């Protein structure tokens, strides 16, 4: 249970990676990639979130229970979004009024 803790070097490395990713996400907005602009921007956001979660928020070093809480949060978030979208986007199929 007693974790080893990240070193200052790890923090600096993660911070540098975050800066590069932030610059990348801004730069890519000026390149025409069609629908992939949004996909790539969100993929970079997920990557940045993962880096912050694992290292700045110590999920990499923590025990199982905390990780389960995080996964539970994502699970309910996915339920909320997917069920709501499943409702809204299928309404035209049976001619139900939209939002």
């Amino acid at each position: 249970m007693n974790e080893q803790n990240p070193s200052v070097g790890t923090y600096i490395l993660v911070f540098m990676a975050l800066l590069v990713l932030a610059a990348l996400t801004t730069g890519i907005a000026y390149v025409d990639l069609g629908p992939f602009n949004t996909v790539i921007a969100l993929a970079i956001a997920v990557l940045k979130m993962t880096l912050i979660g694992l290292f700045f928020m110590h999920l990499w070093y923590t025990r199982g229970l905390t990780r389960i809480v995080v996964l539970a949060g994502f699970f309910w978030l996915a339920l909320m979004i997917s069920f709501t979208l499943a409702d809204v986007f299928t309404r035209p199929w049976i001619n139900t009024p939209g939002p």
Partner: protein
Amino acid sequence: MATPIRSTSMSESAASPLAVPPRESVHSASPALHHQFEDIEQQRDAGNFGMWVFLATEMLFFGGVFTGYIIYRSLYYSGFAAGSHGLEIDLGAAMMFVLLASSFTMAMAVHAAREGKHRPLIGFLTATIILGVAFLGMKFTEYFHKWQEHMVPGLNFHPALENLRGAPERTVELFMCFYFFMTGLHALHMIIGIGLLTVMAILAWRRKLSSENYNRVEVSGLYWHFVDIIWIYLFPLLYLIGGRYK
């Protein structure tokens, strides 16, 4: 908070027939340990666990707005793209860099707290607070620009035609509603976070934090990183709709 409650509760329970003999633990002497916990490690785990449960509820709290955003963006894409192109991307990107830097200084503050180093702890907390205030300053600068462009729904919404960029006015208004609500909710969390960190800095200044009871700094840090992560999503979702290449 740091009173040795443990010793009195132990002597009381010793009188009971069901008394458990006092545990001889290296930690039981620590004044930072609250009586309901076995040791410092368990107390810290409980604190972190509680904060993570709260953050899970915060995910759903923000998630509701994100869900609405997805639906209306797909329904009124042109209005959302027009509103997004009216936002200042350099300001949004600068806010992103400032927040990432504040997350780094926050992580360093927790690191310093764990090692019981007072001066670096106060320094990194102050740096984090300053970066947070800088973020809010830029945020409110942008709000002010939106006010000048008459792009504030409900209060001051009669934008010039070029700010609509050919999209129906009501859909741009809807985007601005999402913009103000999402960034406003985020800014509220920043203000709360700055308040928390100010309390931590004062506690550190008064030498109320040690390498044993730095958990308050740790959970404040978790909260701060969470608010940073929200901006990581808000930036592409609000500022980068449809790209900037046109």
